[in-house]
């Protein structure tokens, strides 16, 4: 179980697998990845389903699914507190959980959210209040090997130049997240070294 924190936003992630899969869902040459996002209050709706799809597609690109054909991998994300930048917090928690579970990955990924305020300034990792006042909101998943954008989810109106600036800001912010991953894993293995 991994607890991902972004300011006050907090998501707990759990990974199960490789496990048995129903014949209707099995894929002959790779693992079937299922992502379930549970909001803090109420049942999961359409918004959670679209967020699940973003997380699932990012995970499928980073994991080596062909090593476990006809198996299922389940990733469950439970929102503990939502104060903005929820999708990027889910992505970070998902990556750490997959890495901690020992599943083979080709690269790591992290999520960064950018908001463009009414006066055009770019805010990284906005809070819920800042998200509400923004004119555009974007979440990018950045990979660890070449810092490329793996997934993007945007809302609002913005120019092409603003999009490129936000990508650059996200790529810079991703360095800190990857350093945090490295430090966490070092601490985890420091007991048994």
């Amino acid at each position, binding site marked *: 179980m991994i607890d991902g924190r972004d300011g006050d936003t907090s998501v707990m992630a759990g990974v199960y*697998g*490789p*496990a*048995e*899969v129903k014949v209707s869902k099995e894929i002959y040459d790779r693992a079937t990845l299922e992502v379930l996002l549970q909001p803090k209050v109420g049942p999961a709706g359409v918004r959670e389903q679209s967020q699940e799809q973003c997380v699932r597609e990012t995970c499928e690109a980073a994991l*080596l699914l*062909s*090593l*476990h*054909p*006809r*198996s*299922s991998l389940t990733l469950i994300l439970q929102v503990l507190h939502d104060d903005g930048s929820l999708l990027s917090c889910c992505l970070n928690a998902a990556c750490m959980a997959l*890495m*901690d*579970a*020992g*599943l*083979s*990955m*080709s*690269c*790591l990924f992290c999520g960064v959210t950018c908001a463009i305020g009414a006066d055009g300034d770019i805010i990284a990792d906005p809070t819920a209040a800042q998200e509400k006042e923004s004119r555009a909101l974007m979440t990018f998943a950045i*990979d*660890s*090997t070449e810092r490329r954008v793996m997934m993007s989810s945007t809302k609002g109106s913005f120019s092409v130049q603003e999009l490129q600036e936000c990508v650059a800001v996200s790529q810079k912010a991703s360095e800190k997240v990857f350093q945090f*991953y*490295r430090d966490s*894993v*070092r601490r*985890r*293995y420091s*007991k*048994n*070294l």
Partner: protein
Amino acid sequence: CDIDILKEKIGEVLLPGDEFVFESEDTIFLTDNVKPERPVCGPGLRQSGNRLVVSKSGVLRHKPPHTFWMDSQQWRYVPAKAETVIGIVTSKSGDIFKVDVGGSEQASLSYLAFEGATKRNRPNVQVGDLVFAQFTVANKDMEPELVCIDGSGRANGMGVFGGGGLLLKVSLGLVRRLLAPQSDIRSDLEQLFPCELVVGMNGRIWVRASTIQQTLIISNLLQSCDTLTAPQRREQFRKLQKGGL
């Protein structure tokens, strides 16, 4: 030399995506006696051409001359050939037993794969029994197959067991540490009280000591070894030896 890049990182924690590039030589001299050293990749490392990529987070380990692998903490077992595991028999259908080994699929165990078993002399295996067996077929594309005999037809410690003991689930790392040739944990355990241990590489350990209380003490100790450092573990063992329960 190229392998030295890897050797510098032995004992360090690496993450998936970390890459090592070997310079490939364009010309190979036929008169040279020295062959370029290629690393042999174990679990957690993948090789493509002259690039070596880490695919699991963990500590890089090395066995001379060229073998490298990632020592990672994992709980879920993935069957691999020639590994000995503890399985639980879940069903008997015709000539085959279905055994749960903790992986994504159940393994099959033929009734003829026991020492001294023939078509007339069937082994006494019931649903729910524990078996200690090894994999003859274990790859990602096929159903895993187990046998309870070795190459020459002898049991060699494998077969049905159980009765009076306790089965526990621990991490795969702990099991590997227990089975290592010079194992600290095993030598510490030997000094406590006499017990019978069956260690399966799928993270399952079966314990039996002379009393139920001692069995429970050992099983609690083994489960806590996952999260204790070596000095903390020795402290626990010392407390128990003095008699504090």
